[in-house]
């Protein structure tokens, strides 16, 4: 039996060793290899010797590297453009920025990690849909005060919309600089004109026309997916067209809870639980029909690519996106595939168009940042100087774009390598500096002005939900949104009626009613506090 023991011991050691090694292998990437940044100390107290800028007594004699996180995928010429930016920044504030991107596919995983790991980055893109509230309440962002703005970002202090500042408040404190831009949250269809002509569809005015187009593609273009939806990003866009917009409904953040309010009913903020409405049942039936006809992939549930990317890559025949994204995409697709004759149509039918909250885009400063002053100065530049805004929004003049005498942006051949307004520059977008694109969507102004006429705002848009009392319910409901709800919305049902009933039941078991009660109480209190 000695031998048995000995073998046991050897094997045990072997297993432990392999476990140790495996552990090492997995932990390394998580711990972050992002400590490349040269340790930079906070600037020494202001010394008056530097009088190149009279008012600001800010010492910028020490060169710093600002580490910035943006969302999305890095464009081909991104480093070229930011190299140019860094030259200007070096001159103006003796700083450079070093940008890392978190891709659309996995930013939800990476974003909390960079905070939790204690990384000392300086700037990060944030928004009400991108962790602003959750990281702010956890203490991930540095509080920004008006005094700080006065000192380090005086022009931003002057130009900022007061409502934007108010919207950014979490428990009375501000943790981000929201964009200074009025954005409409409304969606368009992007389709291929060559296919429309081929199948005799002259115009897409509504869902029925869109269905005709999808149908023609599904029947005749076997190598194309008519509409490649299904990723977590955009599986619910058809819901917006079919159910939300006609009833003037809009999402209450966070979106995963699946609660809605009526934009047109300004006096109340009553929560609408969409899945219990008859419209949702109709929608579920229609989606089953569409799915069965092959309008999207039978593997759509595990799709990780947005309809836009799929469209650009020539895998699908249509895409749904918001107007400004569509504008940038249009320009680059027309350049790369002129034969597609890409067309964009209004999908909203003049209803349910909200003006996005300003905190829909913004920039936050990390609580661990060693150079918050310089970070603010950087933001002040890109938010207020045309040459900075032009560079980060449109690229390098003469390489990526050119300007007409009237100030329109003309995309050049290389524009695809730095898509116009498509490089997560949204956090510092400003109405005064934003330019129209010549050669963008031809009917851009028509669509936008149509929307502006009927666009709605609602005080509840600025409401942020404090979920601390119902966290457990929020967790289970969030889970449903990604699984059972998604299944019904994408039409993967055999018997829509039974499965919608089952879905309602599941939401009830998960404790949705408790969340609604809590959220409604908070909304009512919030609306009362505004009166």
């Amino acid at each position: 039996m000695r031998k048995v023991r000995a073998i046991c011991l050897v094997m045990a050691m072997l297993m432990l060793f392999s476990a140790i090694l495996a552990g090492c292998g997995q932990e390394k990437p998580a711990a972050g290899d992002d400590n490349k940044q040269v340790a930079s100390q906070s600037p020494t107290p202001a010394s008056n010797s530097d009088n190149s800028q009279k008012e600001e007594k800010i010492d910028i004699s020490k060169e710093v590297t600002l580490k910035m996180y943006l969302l999305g995928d890095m464009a081909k010429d991104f480093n070229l453009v930011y190299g140019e930016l860094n030259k200007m920044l070096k001159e103006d504030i003796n700083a450079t920025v070093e940008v890392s991107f978190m891709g659309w596919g996995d930013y939800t995983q990476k974003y909390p990690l960079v905070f939790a790991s204690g990384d000392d980055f300086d700037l990060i893109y944030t928004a009400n849909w991108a962790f602003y509230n959750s990281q702010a309440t956890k203490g991930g962002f540095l509080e920004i005060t008006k005094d700080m703005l006065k000192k380090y970002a005086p022009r931003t202090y002057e130009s900022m919309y007061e409502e934007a500042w108010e919207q950014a408040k979490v428990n009375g404190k501000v943790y981000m600089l929201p964009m200074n831009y009025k954005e409409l949250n409304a969606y368009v269809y992007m389709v291929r004109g060559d296919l429309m002509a081929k199948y005799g569809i002259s115009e897409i005015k509504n869902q029925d026309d869109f269905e005709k187009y999808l149908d023609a593609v599904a029947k005749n273009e076997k190598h194309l997916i008519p509409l490649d939806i299904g990723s977590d990003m955009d599986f619910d866009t058809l819901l917006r067209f079919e159910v939300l917009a006609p009833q003037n409904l809009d999402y209450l953040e966070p979106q995963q809870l699946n609660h809605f309010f009526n934009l047109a009913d300004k006096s109340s903020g009553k929560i609408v639980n969409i899945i219990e409405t008859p419209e949702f049942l109709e929608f579920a039936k229609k989606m089953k029909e569409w799915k069965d006809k092959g309008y999207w992939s039978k593997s759509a549930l595990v799709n990780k690519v947005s309809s836009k990317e799929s469209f650009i890559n020539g895998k699908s025949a249509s895409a749904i996106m918001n107007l400004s994204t569509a504008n940038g995409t249009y320009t680059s697709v027309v350049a790369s595939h002129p034969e597609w004759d890409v067309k964009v149509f209004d999908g909203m039918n003049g209803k349910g168009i909200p003006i996005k909250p300003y905190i829909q885009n913004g920039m936050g400063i990390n609580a661990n940042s060693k150079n918050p002053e310089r970070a603010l100065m950087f933001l002040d530049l890109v938010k207020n100087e045309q040459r900075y805004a032009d560079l980060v929004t449109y690229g390098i003049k003469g390489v990526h774009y050119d300007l007409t005498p009237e100030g329109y942006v003309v995309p050049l051949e290389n524009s695809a390598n730095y898509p116009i307004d498509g490089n997560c520059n949204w956090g510092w977008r400003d109405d005064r500096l934003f330019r129209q694109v010549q050669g963008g969507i031809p009917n851009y102004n028509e669509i936008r002005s149509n929307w502006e006429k009927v666009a709605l705002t609602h005080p509840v848009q600025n409401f942020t939900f404090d979920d601390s009392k119902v966290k457990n319910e929020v967790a289970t409901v969030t889970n449903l949104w990604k699984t059972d709800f998604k299944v019904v919305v994408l039409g993967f049902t055999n018997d829509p009626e039974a499965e919608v009933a089952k879905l309602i039941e599941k939401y009830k078991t998960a404790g949705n009613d408790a969340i609604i009660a809590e959220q409604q109480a908070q909304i009512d209190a919030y609306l009362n506090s505004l009166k």
Partner: protein
Amino acid sequence: MKKKNGILYELNKNKVKFLMIMPAVLYFFIMCYVPMTGIVLAFKNYTYTGGIFKSPWVGFNNFKFFFNSGKAFLVTKNTILYNIAFLIINNFLQITVAIILSELAGKCFKKISQSLMFLPYFISWVVVGAFIYNLFNYEFGAVNTLLNSMGMEPIDVYSNPSAWKYILVAVSAWKWVGYGSVLYLAAILGIDSEIYEAADIDGANIFKKIWHITLPSLKPTVIILLLLSLGNIMKGDFQMFYQVVGNNGLVLDATDVIDTYVVRSLMDLQEFGMTAAAGLYQSVLSLFIILGANKLIKIIDNDYALF
């Protein structure tokens, strides 16, 4: 005079041996025991400012999300059943492969086949997930393209829950057979060759030798490996389930394990307390399972027990 069995006497007498075991002890202390204090998070409402120790206590609140959903039983059951299936099938295949490899004569063939079987171990689950997607994608997948070209009906794997049970078991076997067989091969090579020689003289054929010598000699190894993997029976191989199956609501009843369920629920919430609670739930159940299994083995044959 020193006491013969005092701790100082013991330390002094075996100081070289204690020195030798020091790195391992330190490793486990720093990497396993110190982080264990993080368990308190399961009972706290974590905030960045409060950190691990100053965040407020919330009792068992963090565990509720797991049990409220009504899915706790399902995912726990899935986790255990999948792991048992993996355990049995993988070990069976690993032992078979190890025995075949050890009996093979051609050195070159042996080396090549061993390397080829080991290869999947180095392929990350993300890549495996991409393989699976490109195999089973309804419109463009390799399987359906093949079926189409042969004039057969395409199969729709992504909405068929029962298919995934087999896919997952197969993928797991594919990935681990090479790795595990090396362990068993090492054990087989350690068997005294004189026993085989004696068997040869007695006229035993190859199957007799395998049945009467190799397999009984492997028994302790098998039991040790089983006991060690029992400790992980409550932990779904997250990477595997997440990457191979994806966020597919249609097949979740068949494929959801504790780890994927927790990630899906808490990804957008970032409640560290709740994730810690889920981890603690798994660890406590694992502890009971491994204690129970060890006890059982002790009753059957004291020599094989771990402790």
